[in-house]
């Protein structure tokens, strides 16, 4: 058994975060880990902030990642990683999509979207892997497979074998989308390696 991990997935509603965190949990279960996962839904419906905590180790008690202890922070939207930086452990890895989802209220409130957020993160010396996941998914024919591209991109960081990942995907992704999702996953792996 490899080491356990704390993985925090963040983004906005409707980005497929929950399926991605289900697949990670399944992979961890397949490898014999204890797993806990937590997310807040409720008021955070469409367009709201979404986060999903996944923790696996030999024995896990708390379903929540403590601030300062996330090994990997995966952001499905360009700026959202920044909101959750407090959760990252020192030296932890950020993997982020480049899609910007601009909240319409900014207009009403007269605020600006932080387009330069990736530079800001890099300037602070954070380890950031940037993946054009939405772009890659679109090229594969379905922008919704973006979540699987990101999953592929973090796959090497989580310590599971390719076999474990594939069986988890098989178990969790609806059959009719499996082919596309597997392709998207592989594409994510490649993109992360290249970056």
């Amino acid at each position: 058994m490899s080491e356990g991990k704390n993985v925090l997935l963040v983004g906005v509603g409707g980005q497929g975060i929950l399926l991605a965190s289900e697949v990670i949990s399944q992979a961890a279960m397949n490898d014999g880990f204890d797993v806990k996962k937590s997310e807040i839904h409720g008021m955070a419906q469409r367009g709201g902030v979404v986060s999903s905590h996944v923790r696996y180790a030999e024995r896990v008690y708390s379903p929540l990642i403590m601030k300062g202890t996330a090994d990997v922070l995966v952001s499905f939207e360009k700026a959202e990683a920044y909101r959750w930086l407090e959760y990252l452990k020192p030296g932890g890895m950020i993997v982020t999509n480049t899609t910007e989802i601009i909240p319409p209220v900014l207009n009403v409130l007269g605020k600006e979207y932080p387009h330069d957020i990736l530079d800001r993160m890099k300037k602070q010396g954070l380890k950031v892997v940037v993946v054009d996941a939405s772009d890659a998914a679109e090229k594969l024919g379905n922008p919704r497979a973006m979540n699987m591209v990101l999953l592929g991109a973090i796959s090497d960081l989580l310590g599971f074998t390719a076999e474990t990942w594939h069986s988890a995907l098989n178990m969790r992704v609806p059959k009719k989308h499996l082919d596309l999702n597997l392709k998207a996953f592989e594409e994510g792996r490649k993109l992360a390696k290249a970056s």
Partner: protein
Amino acid sequence: MEKLFLSGNEAIARGIWEAGVHVATAYPGTPSTEILEAVRFYKEIYCEWSSNEKVAVEVAQGASMAGARSFAAMKHVGVNVAMDPLSTFSYTGVNGGFVFVSADEPGMHSSQNEQDNRYLAKFMLIPLIEPADSAEAKAMAIMGFDISEMFCTPVMLRTTTRVSHSKGIVEAGERKEHDVKGFEHDWTKWVVIPANARKRRTVILNRLKQLEEYSNECPLNYIDPGSGSDAKIGIIASSIAYAYAKDVFPDASYLKLGFTNPLPFKLIAEFAKTVDQLIVLEELEPFMQEQLLAAGFKVLGKEIFPREGEILPEILLDSLKKAAKSSLIAIPADHPIHKAEAEVIKPTDFDLPRPPTLCPGCPHRASYYSLRKYKPIVTGDIGCYTLGVLPPLSMMDTCICMGASVTNAVGAFKGLHGTDKVEPVVATIGDSTFIHSGITGLVDAVYNQANLTVIIMDNGTTAMTGGQQHPAMGKSIRNEPAPKLILEDLCRSVGVRRVTVVDPYDFEALDKVIAEEIKADEPSVIITRRECVLDRLRFGPKVVPYIVDQDKCVGCKKCIGLGCPAIVTVDVTVNGKKKVKSKIVEFLCTGCSLCAQICPVSAISIKEESK
């Protein structure tokens, strides 16, 4: 044994199925809703969305009288609604076992208060069990029925949001059938005329004594000894706080309590002997701490941990560190917890709000937009339509609890009546909320002749909690056809003479009705009927978005005043001059046409037409 990965709520559903439950009821409410949503896949269980929590408990109570194992689920404030049948259920006791879930919400993620329902179990003199994760949730759901039947009592199974909504590994078991015993014809037990109830009161006080004994032996309460020097610190913990603590402070000694009313005082005394210091760790109120202090134990609790919100892992850690620094607790200076979390990155240069808003195309929007013109007092209620309070609509004055919109309006009318401060009064209430507890208020308004206008926002679903079925939908919890409650007939039958049904997507018609009914001299009801936009997007025809013709737009920002997330402003340059104009974000637009209808210069039109 098959391993399942279940949320606390799904685990409870699985548990009651394995426990042989026959009847399960609920009214939706975060964070409890998913329990019945999962129960409905177990065909052996009759389940229903009840019209409110009191109804849910009484239906389950009837099933218990009939000798069936029965169950009800609700959010914490739902228990308030059900307190009447519940508190006397304690007196009668059960025939078939009865367990109900109170899903509490430390942190108020989507609730109106943070009440701690453990006090209600104590108040009702009934057992209280509290799981810390999904595996325990399933086990305790099953055990709850054994306790219920063993001691002839209703049992409260209390979760919190984190227990209900976090997932963990659960071992699947089989269903154990419990044959329905048949109706218990015992009027000395079930008819609580004073002569009987007095006798029952003695019975339940004896029961409480037995439960106290049981609490000490119950396997849900156990000592989990620590190691090293930390073992001298003894933490008494229950629910999710135990899980956080085990990760943050793993070597302390724990008294893990799953059965928390009545408390196991003997076991606590035994535990106290093994440690130098006793700490009570509990979210919200000092429920256990107060009782322990009263019993003479020297314990710390709320001196260390916050009483409001959740005690999240980092808050727990911080609290312990602070308590150690101020010498409240003895943790040596070289202890690793002092180093943990030292290097957290706290960005201060980030300001990207994503607040909840009415969805693009939400049928609730138009009513508030129209009400802005007339500026009546608006007593609101609980549901998606509560978001009408937020700017730019800003059209709600009050929101207290389910159903209060109608009755608060009656009172506001009566309070102002005959003074020089009279204002028109409008109540806004959703269809599900109206059925839950608006009907009796409307009866009151008619009977007592309060001149108010009730707008029933009928989007054909219980949207706020994720779209559950209700009696005015013509569908059961399992989506089977069901008799449909006709809201307008109901309103007429209670004596409202002015009842209008209007399509909120037709702004002119809606606005006219609102203007007229506010002026009317008697109680009136407007039913705004249009399906929830999320249902339309899921099941309706393909959406054709609207677009703004920038040449026609004069930048008056009327459409921005709708607060639709799909409408934004853009800076454009016309003849060298900077102007602000509106623009529709096409992929967000659901084609409701409201903005097009209110645009004074007809600059907004459906996309295909403009091509």
